[in-house]
């Protein structure tokens, strides 16, 4: 079959903070340096820019200030500057405020804002520079010639559930580029392909992930002063579970709150969504939310592994930037500025390589040098062991975090860790003879005012997909009834924050996994955490997915 092809100089996959910063930087370089105009294209699977972008978010404006020094004059504003930081240690019934805020959690100079709004603004800047942003088109497959990235094939449109072509069928397009910059986000489907095909992570530590669940609330405006940033440790997570809660206060009684849980938990019955509900039922959090209304819900995985887990970010004809490469500072709980920074550096390397007419890995390696010699390594290297230390529990993690601040990360040997899904214990191993009979884990009351069931929450993610299309979650369901049920009690129904996975029990039949693919909020948790690694997330038909306005 013959496909349409499109030739560009630089193809950027993913219109998030990394991809759009790369596009904008390319346009700036073009203006400053002149010469033959570069053709740049950005692929974005969301229907509109920012629709799939979700973050806390406390935003460090350092990279933004480099990219667009006059961003305020150009119409970007954040909800509030950070006025005060608070850190609480929580138990089931009480909270203790830490008297001193640990330095990495001091956010003076940062802003509370919405990543969705930042991305929408960036997209406007990029389009004003004449760069084509193809929103509603997902990158399906990396086109490789030997070890050289030739470009990306976009997904077919108009394919029916049974795989047949519908009347509006349109085959995907092959976009060929001299340099492809992969900015497809955490556990990006293309980055995953290319890292494994080219062995870019072969001598790196395995990436560590977490999943963040977030809600926006409108509460009476006197609850929390705008500009307040609260982080919590402890309850509802246990010693052995990495993560914590956050509550950020914006003007007008708007609260952003959420819970981040490490995707390296051991208890197979652990349920991040139930933990988030428990967080909201904690008296301290309830006192902030009571009488308010839920505005929006969402979830997203985040790469927490840090410096030692970042794959080789360059290859023949390709670069990796942002969350796709794992550029996130898990100690400061921030990645947006690093995504923007690495996007800009990738753009600069791509530009120089194209001008020198050499886009080989050797030429693009200047990207890695720019990372090593600049603020990215300076920020990530000293804290490279912190997340791995939390693998030994909260106390060890906090001790290591403190140590790394004192020593600036100097010690003898780096800590190692296993991929998170390998840490999950079987029911028999974890519970011994006392496996909870329901195997659904301890339940949390759902009142549909303060706490919600998954399905109701998903409604507030605004997620929508064309219903008549093949499932975009490729699952080998042969293990569900025979192995996964007895061994792990079907963890997918718990770690998915959007009720994509359901176990259907019909009388006289073996249990069956039902995949509600159109509930998916594209968080990638299942692709990461399933203990058998039999779930592969591929992009659904372009345009489908959540609608994260204001998130």
């Amino acid at each position, binding site marked *: 079959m013959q496909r349409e092809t499109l030739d560009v100089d630089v193809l950027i996959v993913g219109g998030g903070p990394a991809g759009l910063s790369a596009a904008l930087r390319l346009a700036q370089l073009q203006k400053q340096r002149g010469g033959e105009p570069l053709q740049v294209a950005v692929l974005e699977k969301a229907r509109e820019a920012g629709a799939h972008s979700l973050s806390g978010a406390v935003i460090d404006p350092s990279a933004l200030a480099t990219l667009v020094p006059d961003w305020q004059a150009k119409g970007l504003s954040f909800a509030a500057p950070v006025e005060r930081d608070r850190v609480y240690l929580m138990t089931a019934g009480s909270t203790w405020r830490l008297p001193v805020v640990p330095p990495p959690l001091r956010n003076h100079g940062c802003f509370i804002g919405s990543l969705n709004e930042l991305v929408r603004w960036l997209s406007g800047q990029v389009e004003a520079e004449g760069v084509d942003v193809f929103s509603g088109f997902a990158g399906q497959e990396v086109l490789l010639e030997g070890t050289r990235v030739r470009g990306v094939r976009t997904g077919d*449109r108009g394919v029916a559930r049974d795989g047949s072509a519908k009347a509006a069928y*349109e085959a995907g397009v092959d976009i060929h580029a001299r340099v492809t910059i992969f900015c497809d986000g955490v556990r990006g489907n293309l980055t995953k392909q290319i890292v494994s095909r080219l062995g870019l992570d072969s001598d790196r530590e395995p990436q560590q992930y977490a999943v963040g669940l977030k809600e926006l609330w409108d509460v009476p405006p006197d609850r929390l002063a705008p500009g307040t940033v609260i982080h919590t440790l402890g309850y509802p997570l246990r010693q052995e579970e990495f993560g914590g809660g956050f509550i950020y206060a914006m003007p007008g009684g708007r609260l952003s709150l959420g819970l981040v849980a490490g995707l390296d938990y051991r208890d197979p019955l652990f349920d991040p969504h139930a933990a988030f509900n428990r967080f909201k039922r904690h008296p301290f959090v309830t006192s902030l939310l009571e009488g308010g209304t839920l505005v929006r819900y969402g979830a997203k995985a985040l790469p927490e592994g840090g410096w030692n887990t970042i794959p080789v970010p360059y290859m023949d004809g390709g670069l990796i930037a942002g969350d796709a490469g794992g550029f996130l500072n898990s100690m400061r709980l921030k990645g947006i500025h690093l995504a923007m920074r690495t996007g800009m550096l990738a753009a600069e390397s791509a530009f120089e390589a194209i001008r020198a007419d050499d886009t080989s890995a050797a030429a693009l390696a200047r990207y890695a040098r720019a990372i090593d010699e600049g603020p990215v390594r300076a920020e990530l290297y000293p804290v490279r062991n912190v997340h791995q230390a939390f693998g030994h529990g909260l106390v060890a993690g906090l001790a290591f975090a403190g140590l790394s601040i004192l020593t600036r990360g100097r010690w003898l040997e780096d800590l190692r860790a296993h991929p998170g899904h390998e840490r999950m214990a079987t029911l028999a191993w974890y519970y011994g003879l006392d496996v909870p009979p329901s195997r659904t884990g301890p339940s949390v009351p759902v009142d549909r005012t303060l706490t919600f069931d998954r399905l109701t929450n*998903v*409604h507030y993610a605004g997620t929508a997909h064309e219903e008549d299309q093949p499932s975009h979650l490729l699952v080998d369901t042969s293990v569900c009834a025979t192995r996964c049920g007895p061994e792990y009690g079907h963890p997918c129904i718990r770690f998915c924050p959007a009720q994509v996975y359901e176990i259907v029990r019909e009388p006289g039949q073996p249990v069956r996994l039902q995949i509600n693919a159109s509930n998916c909020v594209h968080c990638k948790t299942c692709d990461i955490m399933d203990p058998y690694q039999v779930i592969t997330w591929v992009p659904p038909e372009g345009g489908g997915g959540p609608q994260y306005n204001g998130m």
Partner: protein
Amino acid sequence: MILVVAEVQRDGTLNRATWETVAAAQQLAGGEPIVAAVLSSARAGAVGAELASGGVSEVLVASHEQLAQYTPDGFCAALLQVVGETTPTFVLLPHTYQARDFVPMAAARFGAPLVTDVTGIEGTGTDAVFLRQMFQGKLVASVRHRGSGPRFVTVQLGAFRADAVTRGDGAAAVRTMAVDISPEAVRQRPEEPFREAKQAVDLGQAERIVAVGRGIKAQEHIALAERLAAAMAAEVAASRPICDSGWLPMDRQIGSSGQTVAPKLYIALGISGAIQHLVGMKGARTIVAVNKDADAPIFEVADYGIVGDLFEIVPALAAELEKG
């Protein structure tokens, strides 16, 4: 010479898009002669005469009994012979379902390039550049044919104006051209045309709806809801899991990913009332819910609620209504 291949519809009339294609050909020709070809032999005389009246220098009507009904092999063979005899620089067709079906094959037989779904033409003659949309209209690609021809082009419907055709002074000559199609070469056998009998249900018009949810448990129990619906002249609808399992067609799904309805009476059987379903039916004037779970959210919107087993209640309801 430019060849325009007319399309004749099933009722024997000329497809209007043919005139749009003639308009495109006139723009491309720059004075070159244009020949129209009719492949279908159904009412070919009338169609040929109609074409002869408008802006072409000759009309060719292919003649063979195999052409009475459309088959891709038959039409392809006829087109090959017409093109072979007339040696046009370009072959233009409207981008219809029929053209999409057989023209790629014809172009492939010639080893000739085919530019599809063209929305504009720049320049004239063999150097002409054709415009076509990519990425659902976000980009326009400029395409030029390579090679010596024939150059096949299909024209997007509505891209050129039929009333822009410059009509000639008199009628052009209509020539019948015998073509040779061996019956064995035609691998398809057309059947009687049919229209899918079932129209999509418009649940929005229904006054009464009986909707089933997961509580119905098995596909064979759908009949229960159908019996109740028949007894009260209602439409049957469902929540998402039912349509997902294929127990009812997708066009009967109510909710955020299905239809939104506001009937006078909505009976929800075994539907828990996920918000995704509620947004599709909460506008109903009277809502009756039957569910085993007294805490099911459907009872928050129901006017009448029955906490109980639908397998007992529905047959009783139906029996009572059937008496009336």
